[in-house]
Each structure stands twice: as structure tokens, then as C-alpha cells.
């Protein structure tokens, strides 16, 4: 096993994020209570997702520039792990929302309709749908080179369209979600100092874990496709 410095730091940071995240003091807010600790997990998932998608599109651009099939495999793996992080972000968000947003007099599914109209949720849904479509596109092109090229083009096109939608939609719809203008939790006024000392390491840790999983998938794919990858050289 290749254990490099960043993998060790991923483990250390995540142990700190889990232990510190559950034990260190947090501000007491009546609406949030102890669920505020979910910040260390929920928001980090979205950060990790966006960073992994960004790596994926960089790999796609590299593929288009060089025609090296390895970049295509990397782009696909990072997109896959990014999608997984996004699903986890939804899961942690759903737990959080059921404590804060959902109407206690109604069952959780009755509030679903109003919760799903949240602009942040729409933005996240668009991101996940785009990468869902990306994988369907990949599976429906049979030729290897063409698959790599077509999916790289779609990746770049969709990613470039995703950002305007994340900026535009929150300004069109009303929202309960924190961080109406811009990025929640990045703003220095949003977040208490006591939380920042756990939050930033947690973001880094989860992102590194995502990258670690991706590199494992990439190495596995390289072995599976070794004939193709090695011909390449």
C-alpha cells in the first residue's frame, strides 16, 4: 500500500473531525441545539463534491488536450466519487432538515414538497443529475475513444453551465437555507471561532478521503484496462 503524507494527514484530520466534532464545545443556539455539529459532516460533503467535480473537469480538459486515455479514466473516477459525496451530502442534509425545518406536527414526508424547493437543494440536484447523465452518456457510447471524447466534452459543457445555475437560482427563489448570498460557512461572520477550528480541518480531511478513494479506483481501473493504458506509452 502506498501510504504517502497526505493519506496519513487524511486519517489524522478525520479522526480529529469525528472526535473533536462530537466533543469540542459549540455555540448554543435554540433552533439548532446539538445538531449544529452536523456542519462538520454535511457542509464538508458538498465541499468535497465540488472539489472532486472540479478535479474531474480538469482531467477532462487534459484528455481533450492530450488524447491520453488515462485522463479519461481519472475524470470518470473523480466524477463517480464526487457523486457519492453528493449523495452523502443529501443524506446528512435530510437528517439535519428533519430536526430543523420539518414541521413537527406533520410527518417528514409531508414537508418534502416545500423542502425540495430550496435553491441550494435544486443546485445540488442539478449537479447530481448532470453527473448521472454523464455516466449514462458514457455507457451509451461503445467506441472507446469516442466515449472518452464525447463524455469529456459533456463534462466541460455541463460544468460550465452548472456554476451560473448555482449563482442564479438562489437569487430567484426564497430560501430558509443559511448562506443566502454566496457560500454558507465560508463567510467569516457565519461561523463561530470554536467551530472553525474543527470545520476547516474537517473539510480538508473529507476532501482528502474522497481523493484517496478516487486514486484507489483509478489504480484498479488502470489494472483492469492495463492493455489499453500500457499501449498508450
Amino acid at each position: 500500500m502506498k501510504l504517502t503524507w497526505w493519506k496519513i494527514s487524511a486519517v489524522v484530520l478525520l479522526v480529529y473531525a469525528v472526535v473533536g466534532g462530537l466533543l469540542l464545545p459549540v455555540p448554543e443556539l435554540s433552533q439548532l441545539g446539538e445538531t449544529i455539529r452536523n456542519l462538520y459532516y454535511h457542509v464538508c460533503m458538498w465541499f468535497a463534491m465540488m472539489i472532486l467535480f472540479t478535479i474531474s473537469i480538469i482531467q477532462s480538459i487534459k484528455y481533450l488536450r492530450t488524447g491520453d486515455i488515462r485522463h479519461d479514466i481519472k475524470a470518470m473516477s473523480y466524477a463517480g466519487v464526487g457523486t457519492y459525496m453528493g449523495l452523502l451530502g443529501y443524506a446528512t442534509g435530510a437528517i439535519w432538515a428533519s430536526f430543523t425545518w420539518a414541521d413537527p406536527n406533520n410527518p417528514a414526508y409531508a414537508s418534502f414538497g416545500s423542502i425540495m424547493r430550496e435553491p441550494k437543494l435544486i443546485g445540488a440536484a442539478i449537479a447530481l443529475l448532470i453527473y448521472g447523465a454523464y455516466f449514462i452518456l458514457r455507457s451509451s457510447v461503445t467506441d472507446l475513444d469516442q466515449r472518452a471524447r464525447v463524455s469529456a466534452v459533456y463534462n466541460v459543457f455541463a460544468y460550465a453551465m452548472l456554476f451560473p445555475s448555482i449563482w442564479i437560482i438562489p437569487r430567484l427563489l426564497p430560501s430558509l437555507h443559511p448562506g443566502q448570498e454566496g457560500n454558507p460557512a465560508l463567510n467569516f461572520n457565519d461561523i463561530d471561532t470554536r467551530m472553525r477550528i474543527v470545520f476547516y480541518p474537517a473539510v480538508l480531511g473529507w476532501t482528502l478521503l474522497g481523493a484517496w478513494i478516487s486514486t484507489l479506483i483509478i489504480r484498479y481501473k488502470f489494472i483492469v484496462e492495463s492493455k489499453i493504458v500500457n499501449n498508450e506509452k
Partner: protein
Amino acid sequence: MEKKISMKPAAETALIPKEITLDAIKQYKALLKKEFLLEARQQHTLYGVMLYIASTVFVIYLTMGSPEAETWNALFWITQLFICINAVAKSFLQEAKGRMLYYYSITSPVIFILSKLTYNIILMVAMGVINLMLFAAFMGNPTSSFFLFMGIGVLGSIGLGLIFTMLAAIASKALQQASLMAILGFPLVIPQLLLLARLSKAAFSEIFRDGVPIQLVLLILALDIMIVLLSVILYPFLWKD
């Protein structure tokens, strides 16, 4: 058998026409003329789309009667979206492989995609106007300013036509093209549709704050420009088989 893996997409050379010469403009005009000629010769596809519009609107009319303004607006944009998928899909799907090879030998990808974009804008604006007429004829006219709504409809048709042209180009390389186009396109058109649905409330005599409608129009136009730029940059990579 040695499988050839890396074909360097030699798009760098073809990315930008050497210079915007008269030659490029002439090629662009010729390609655009070809699209219209094809449409005139193969009229069944155009009539097919029109019939699609008519039957969709008729089904909505039968199920909804005369809906309220908000529902009318939402239904209009959803029909417009589906018309777009059907109308624009054929622009690349009808190009046979041999013909693409022929284009490849006579023109540059940038000119080719620009002519496709222009043609699809014109087609979508025409279809949008037909759609709007049918909506007004069957389901009444809840707008307070019909021509303002028509202007917004034209603006929206341009944006939808642009975005789905590029997606048709992508989908034409894959299997099950038509359904794939919808899957690829829906997440990307959500912001545009939200902007348009919001903007069209201006034609239903909803009061906006000063300058907001202009801002929305500028946003939509900025999105359109971005789509054109992305198509021009990315299409050369798709072009080569």
C-alpha cells in the same frame, strides 16, 4: 489485432478559422442555405414537428380546459421545452455519417456549428410563435400584454435552441439519441427555464422592482452568449470521428 487507442484530437488546428475571411462568411451562408433547402425538400420532418405541437396543445386543452395564468405559463414553457427537444434533435440525427465526412473535407467545425446554431434559433423561434398562437387559440390569453409575452417567448426559444443544438451534437455520437438528449439537457436548462418563467410574469402584469426585468433579460442573454462560446470551443473536439 493492434487496437489504435490514441487519436490525438487534432482540434487545435481547426479551432479557429485562420482568419475571418470572406471565404468563411461564404461557407457559413452556404451551409445555412443548405439547412433551409433540406427543410424545403424534406418537409415531412417540419410538418411532423408542427403536428407534435398541435397535438400536445390539444391534449393539454382537453385535460385542462382554460387554466389560470400561472398554470398557463408553466405549461407553455414545458411544451416549449419538449418541442425544442423534438425539433432540434433532428438537426444532427439526420446527418448521415458519409455526409459528415463530406462536411469535414470542405469546411471548419466552427463555421459548421455556427450555421447549425443559427438555423436552430430560427427554427425554434418559428415553432415558439406557432406554439404560442395555438396556446392562445385553445386556452385563451391570460396575458396582459400578448406582444411582450411573445418577445419573451422568442428570447426563450433562442436560448433553448442554442443549448439543445450542442446537446444534439453530443447525443448524436451515442446510442438511443433522442432520449439521451432529454437526459443530458434537463439539468442544464433548469436555470434558463426558471429565469424565463420568472421573466414572463412581467407579461402577466406582475409588478417588478425597477430594473429587475432588464436584469433577467441580460442574464438570459449572457447565458446564451456563454453557450455559443462553449459550443465554438468544444464542437471541434466532437467533430472528428
